[in-house]
């Protein structure tokens, strides 16, 4: 591959006191790829996301991004989460973290926040540009909801949505930040097989139509195997394997880590 990866993680290490949750993990994602990060519970996958998105400041290693079309490679570890999001990496959370007492539309509008300008004076005087911006954001948010298939809930409070819809709203909200890459933490957790199938199609659509690359953590092997271009496997904070779904399925280290759990699907 001659193109530079859009996300290049080198030797990422994270210590919590004496616990090494991440141990020199390397990972890269190229433009247009869907990459999965798998591993048993407690392997450090969520910690990996938290280190990339600025929620934790990693103890060692580098996180480099190179936004497509912008071309410049930047180091983003140590940045605040909002700065990382501004740079174009958006995420969802394993334990759903929506703004429960805001409507579905407002949740997505929050995602647009960092692409808006109105300040205090704009808010108070509500001039032409502020109103225009508000209107544009409402349009944009609604059209994202349409793409995700949540438009029928537009005015409902987030807390009143069915579980599967809440997971999808997390994706919609992340998309509103105009990312070049989405990081999804167990997006199918708690979904029924039908919802999971819809999610599969949705993720493909996001890649095809929006050109957004995807890094996802997932336990549903069927989903992982069907979606991913490449898979990284972690166990006890270390990367133990990487490769295409076919390679991963046969990898002895992976089979051992999963200790007889079904990998083939």
């Amino acid at each position: 591959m001659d193109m530079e990866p859009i996300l290049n993680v080198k030797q990422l290490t994270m210590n919590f006191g004496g616990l090494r949750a991440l141990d020199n993990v390397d990972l890269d994602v190229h433009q247009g790829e869907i990459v999965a990060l798998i591993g048993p519970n407690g392997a450090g996958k969520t910690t990996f996301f938290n280190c990339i998105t600025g929620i934790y400041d990693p103890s060692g290693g580098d996180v480099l991004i190179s936004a497509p079309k912008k071309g410049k490679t930047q180091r983003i570890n140590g940045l605040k989460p909002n700065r990382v999001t501004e740079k174009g990496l958006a995420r969802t959370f394993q334990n759903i973290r929506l703004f429960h007492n805001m409507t579905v539309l407002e949740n997505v509008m929050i995602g647009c926040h960092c692409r808006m300008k109105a300040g205090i004076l704009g808010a108070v005087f509500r001039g032409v540009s502020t109103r225009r911006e508000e209107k544009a954001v409402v349009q944009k948010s609604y059209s994202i909801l349409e793409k995700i298939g949540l438009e029928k809930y537009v005015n409902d409070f987030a807390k009143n949505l069915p579980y599967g819809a809440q997971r999808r709203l997390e994706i919609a909200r992340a998309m509103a930040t105009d990312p070049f890459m989405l990081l999804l933490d167990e997006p199918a957790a708690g979904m029924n097989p039908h919802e999971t199938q819809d999610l599969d199609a949705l993720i493909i659509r996001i890649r095809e139509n929006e050109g957004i690359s995807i890094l996802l953590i997932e336990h549903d092997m069927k989903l992982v195997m069907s979606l991913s271009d490449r898979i990284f496997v972690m166990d006890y904070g270390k990367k133990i394997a990487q490769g295409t779904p076919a390679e991963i399925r046969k990898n002895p280290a992976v089979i051992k880590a999963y200790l007889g759990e079904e990998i083939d699907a």
Partner: protein
Amino acid sequence: MWIEIETPMLANELKKSFLASLWFMFLTFPIMVIRVNTVEKIIQWRWANLFFVGIGSFILSALWRYLIRRKEQGIHRTEVDGIARVTLSQRLLGDRRFTIPALIITTIAALVFPFVFSIYQTNIMITALIYVMLGLGLNIVVGLAGLLDLGYVAFYAVGAYSYALLNYHFGLGFWTVLGIGGGLAAMFGIILGFPVLRLRGDYLAIVTLGFGEIIRLILENWNAFSFGPSGIANIPRPGLFGIDLDIEQATIYVYFLMIAMTLFTIFVVNRLQNSRIGRAWIALREDEVACQSMGIDKRKTKLMAFALGATWAGFAGVVFAAKTTFINPASFTIWESINVLCVVVLGGMGSIVGVIVGAFILILLPEYLRFLSEYRMLAFGTVLVMMMVFRPGGIVETVRRTYQYKETDH
């Protein structure tokens, strides 16, 4: 409305109340029953008191259990129906047939008030309006951004002392200082905001409480700067194009000034609440981590909430100094912060109408129920506990106007 309670359940509930009353009789036995008469050296056994304590606590406990049960069933019902309960206040506020006449009546009442009632009453009304302003300001911090600030009175003090001192030393007028006082208070808001950026909930409450006390102690002890506990007197009332006003006219003038400023506050807070920044505050309150991950600068957003909240306290402080013409640190104790917080919580956090209602209830009721003044704190406490249990949303439960998407927006 009577809620069906099945018989075994009822027996069970009564048993619990009975046990509670037994416990109470036991606890209060030493103070309510035994009395040692040291003069005649005898012990009196007041068994009748035991009986009253028993009956009283039994009835209160049963009532409490009944109300709790009723509330739980209410919640249960909404869960089953899946439709949110619409409270009376929400329905009234949403109904134009109610809001428009109510607005007209309020306007007329506000306009004629100082001409119908005495200066004394007008002064009370000014105080209530100051509290509306303080409440609306604190509501930005507590109600919208969800930051529990117990040192709010510090900004009120900053406003009041800015006017008093700037006037004393430099002869600056009310209108000049109104802006300066607001600005200084905003600056203090940011000064307080910085160290507490990482704190939440209880920790934040404690630190802000300390901040409020620090400001008060400085004012009390730094005599050279603030004239200490004796305060500053002869602060001029606001001027009106250099016209000389007698006390009555001046009071009426301040009253209308406060009405105007309250309207201005409502306007600004309402605009802020329904803006990009207001949304960010609410999101910050809902979930700080998610909020940051959605690209919102936590630091900037929090500081903005602190600064804007403080600005209104600063304005209110300047007006307060001008109204009373005398200030000293005793006006800016922690109780003042708690009072304002009660206005917000009692009225309904995050709701503008709620804060207004809360301010009027909290300021006017004690004025007119002076004969109860000894029990004021007791009554306050009881009311607040009851509110937290039975109506945590406040008197006017938040009817935050959410953005309603209509097809026409398309």
